[in-house]
């Protein structure tokens, strides 16, 4: 087992209009986790807790082996954080920011910073307020990466980026991962980015973890099956059935536990299969969240 970069166990945090409820979340060292949730699902609150910016009411939080929030000073030296609101000073230049970060973090890697400037097509002498949104995100990422943190925490890093900037950011994240001891937690509501670069996924909705697991295994388990179901036949007994859409003979079955046995079971029930399709992470995410919300209602 790889050591854990992040371990949250039974973490609760109560606000007047929102609460995190017994959140368990683990990230193995050397991997990228995509942390997916709708707006307001609890992604940012969870991230603030694991950074020590907000203290949990109960539950334990360990980041890079440090208990949070009590050992947050130790942990923070090794965490790079980039959030949507960025917190850069508009009237200062990127160089000024680089000098500031370098003076605080002794592990600042000036030559890597210079490489990133080129790769991201940024100019150090430009003031932050003159930069586009994409350039600001890349500037913030540069400031975090050149510290060579063991853990990168990114809150919606690709939101609002154009396709080229998005490509540059994802490519840079993946080149960081060539080194085995680095880990990334990356929150998003963009399932496409997560599907591309994440090793593990965690779904959060309304303050609760809905699903967590290995991305490839997860994609492997879900299928959409187009089938022909004669009148009077039923597929009720099928394990892992999420939904059966459509009326009449032509139906669409969504299943979360697909295996070789599924086809046999469908045929044994009297239906014939036209096509078995893989599903995108986005489709799976939406089905999972809607399914869970309906369960809660009942």
């Amino acid at each position, binding site marked *: 087992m790889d050591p854990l970069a992040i371990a949250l166990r039974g973490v609760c945090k109560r606000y007047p209009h929102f609460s995190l409820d017994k959140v368990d979340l683990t990230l193995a060292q*050397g*991997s*990228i986790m995509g942390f997916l949730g709708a707006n307001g699902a609890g992604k940012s609150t969870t991230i603030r807790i694991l950074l020590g910016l907000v203290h949990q009411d109960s539950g334990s939080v360990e980041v890079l082996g440090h208990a949070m929030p009590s050992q947050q000073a130790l942990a923070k030296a090794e965490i790079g954080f980039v959030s949507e609101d960025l917190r850069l000073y508009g009237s200062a230049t990127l160089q000024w920011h680089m000098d500031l970060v370098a003076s605080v973090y002794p592990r600042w890697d000036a030559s890597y910073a210079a490489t990133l400037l080129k790769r991201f097509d940024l100019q150090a002498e430009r003031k932050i307020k003159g930069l586009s949104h994409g350039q600001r995100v890349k500037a913030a990422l540069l400031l975090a990466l050149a510290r060579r943190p063991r853990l990168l925490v990114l809150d919606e890093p690709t939101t609002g980026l154009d396709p080229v900037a998005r*490509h540059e950011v*994802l*490519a840079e994240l*993946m*080149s960081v*991962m*060539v*080194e*085995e001891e680095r880990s990334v937690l990356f929150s998003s509501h963009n399932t496409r980015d997560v*599907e*591309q*670069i*994440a*090793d*593990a996924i965690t779904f959060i909705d309304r303050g609760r973890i809905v699903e967590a697991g*290995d*991305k*490839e295994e997860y994609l492997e388990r879900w299928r959409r099956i187009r089938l022909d179901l004669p009148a009077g036949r039923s597929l009720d007994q099928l394990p892992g059935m999420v939904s059966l859409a459509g009326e009449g003979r032509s139906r669409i079955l969504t299943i979360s536990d697909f295996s070789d046995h599924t086809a046999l079971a469908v045929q044994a029930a009297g239906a014939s299969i*036209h*096509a078995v399709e893989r599903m995108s992470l986005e489709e799976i995410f939406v089905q999972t969240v809607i399914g869970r919300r309906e369960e809660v209602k009942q």
Partner: protein
Amino acid sequence: MYLQIIEQIRHKVAVGDWPPGAEIPSIRQLAADLSVSVITVKRAYLELEREGVILTQQGRGSIVSHTPSLSTVVWEQQLGRSLDEAARLGSMLGLAPDEIRTRLETAINQLKET
């Protein structure tokens, strides 16, 4: 996504870009080169190892398998899959088996002409 990576690697091996015995990129390196997750590349390598296309040596990375008939094996598998797919699509369109055979013959004849 791992299926695409498998396809790309099979192709590189079949056309000789990656000759038998050649070292291939580490899982993490290829993940970085392609900007896809480490686990996806790992999955592709496992599958290719099972097929005998590559060999992974503990702690020494992966190489292209020495099997000389490798590219034949790869194309054989590809042909099998394409034929299955043709049969499936044909029956989905409601074509009779003879019609599907005729279509295949037409395709063969077209290839001869070019």
